[in-house]
């Protein structure tokens, strides 16, 4: 049997009295895209750093491709690519020089580097910018260059810590296409993201909060774990609707969701009439109710609130 790409078992990391990661176990299968989602300070970055060996853990074991990180650190690090949240490109080096630097660090041979760099630059549409200084690239292009640097030594697994935070939607779409392409080439991707629509694109998703894994599964599985139903409410007076329904006992939570509201209720059949009468009493008459399949964000919010 093929060992998982990443196997985290009972890992704990403390910073003084703060427990950043607490007896956390999860595994990432070979060749999958696994997305880690959680609030700020949940321990996402700490977990990433533990997996790439940048931080030492206090307890537990970590295996990458079956190799024990604690015992075979060098081998593990050679097969892993890590892109931290603020990836350190050298702004005063050109695109090619940045790549060459990271290639040299990982001991990529000259011939291999040539092949690899050409492919990566072509795949990332950066071929024409080889001589440009990293500082002069746009935000989306910097992100792509950082990813290229992470991939220069052909790692079998890459760890990406919020790679698209602060990137505009179009660049994000493009970035994810590249991720899919890399993944199709066999690379395992372990990515953290604050964007729920991105998590939706992953094969499996882990919800993390306060250093522990809350739940883990495919997006469909996670949504099915949600007990209760989601009612979508369309109204011009979103704020009023939310205020009036927040105290309704049959509504577990109600949140604005783009241009509509999502109410999480134990049963739609019971809750919709109750909500309707409340809104009528508050003179909100344009509300339209519809039961919808839950989104990943619904599942996440519900899981966090329990």
């Amino acid at each position: 049997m093929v060992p998982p790409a990443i196997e985290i078992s009972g890992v704990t990391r403390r910073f003084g009295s703060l427990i950043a990661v607490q007896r956390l176990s999860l595994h990432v299968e070979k060749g999958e895209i696994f997305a880690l989602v959680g609030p700020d300070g949940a321990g996402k970055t700490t977990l990433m750093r533990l997996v790439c060996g940048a931080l030492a853990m206090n307890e537990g074991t970590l295996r990458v491709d079956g190799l024990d990180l604690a015992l075979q650190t060098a081998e593990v690090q050679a097969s892993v690519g890590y892109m931290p949240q603020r990836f350190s490109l050298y702004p005063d080096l050109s695109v090619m020089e940045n790549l060459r630097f990271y290639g040299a660090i990982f001991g990529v041979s000259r011939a291999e580097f040539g092949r690899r760099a050409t492919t990566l630059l072509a795949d990332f549409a950066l071929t024409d910018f080889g001589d440009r200084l990293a500082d002069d690239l746009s935000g989306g292009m910097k992100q792509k260059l950082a990813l290229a640097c992470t991939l220069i030594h052909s790692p079998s697994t890459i760890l990406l810590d919020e790679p698209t935070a602060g990137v505009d939607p179009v660049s994000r779409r493009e970035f994810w296409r590249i991720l899919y392409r890399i993944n199709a080439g066999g690379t395992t991707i372990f990515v953290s993201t604050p964007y729920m629509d991105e998590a939706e694109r992953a094969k499996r998703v882990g919800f993390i909060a306060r250093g522990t894994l809350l739940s883990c599964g495919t997006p469909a599985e996670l949504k099915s774990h949600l007990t209760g139903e989601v009612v979508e409410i369309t109204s011009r007076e979103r704020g009023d609707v939310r205020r009036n329904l927040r105290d309704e006992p049959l509504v577990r939570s109600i949140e604005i969701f783009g241009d509509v509201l999502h109410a999480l209720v134990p049963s739609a059949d019971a809750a919709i009439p109750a909500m309707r009468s409340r809104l009528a009493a508050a003179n909100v008459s344009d509300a339209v109710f519809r039961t919808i399949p839950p989104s990943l964000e619904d599942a996440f919010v519900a899981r966090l609130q329990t």
Partner: protein
Amino acid sequence: MNGSAAPTIRADALTKRFGDFVAVSDVSFEIRAGEIWGFLGPNGAGKSTTIRMLCGVLSPTSGSAEVLGFDVARDPEEVKLRIGYMAQGSSLWNDLSVQEHLRFYAGLFGLAGTKREDAISHWLKRLDLYGQRARLAGTLSGGYRKRLALACTLLHEPQMVFLDEPTSGVDPLSRREFWDIIVALAEAGTTVLVTTHYLDEAEHCNDLALIYDGKIVASGTPESLKRDARNGITAEILSPDTVRVLDAIETQPFVASAGLYGSALHVCIRERDGLDRLSQFLQEHAIPVDSIAQVTPSLEDVFASLVGKR
């Protein structure tokens, strides 16, 4: 309030050049009192530069701007007294505590005594910072840093606030809290200019403007932008292999833009009969598809079709 329809902000042909580079080119718009005005666009399109000109941090190369009735170039100090600005990057002192930050800003804006303490404790509680008040800003996580920056911006009850990516790096749950506050501010009469990369957030805005390459390329309410016929029709494709579909259709002339949308694929098509041509094309090339349906475009689709293929 003079109660008239005088806009809170009037930008008139604002232009900013840095050397040869035109960061903002001939940008004009108006923002009415009490509205949430969303400013969208890719990184480097000119959003922050425009905001900086409106706040009096940068002087425009040409054009003018009026904020709360004052000319920014002539009376920058009058403007600065009445606005709140939350910059995109970090703007905190790592070696000062949460409470010290708030005291500092209170001092800058002349709040003192019980007024100061009331304002500080109000925002500490409202932004869930009370438990963190003695912590140094340098030890806070990204989301809490944003909370603190927002508290510092709102402490002196500005009539107009500029929020440059207030929610970037903030988790989904906290983002909702932020937007609760923003909506409440607007309802209380504060005018809000906000930029964001989360287009679901942009739906909260009364008005939107999309900036690209320093020029405003589209503006209007979220609904009108989505309805705008010029943006064509949007199809949602579900497929076991979305990337393959994407690779195949992307280069087709009838496709205006295509991209991953969650786990699905959204395709913008300019022509009316585009949907038929799309299904025909996929059938001809034997690309497996679970379903194709026309959907209301999301703001992200609008954004992509305006910006993506240029």
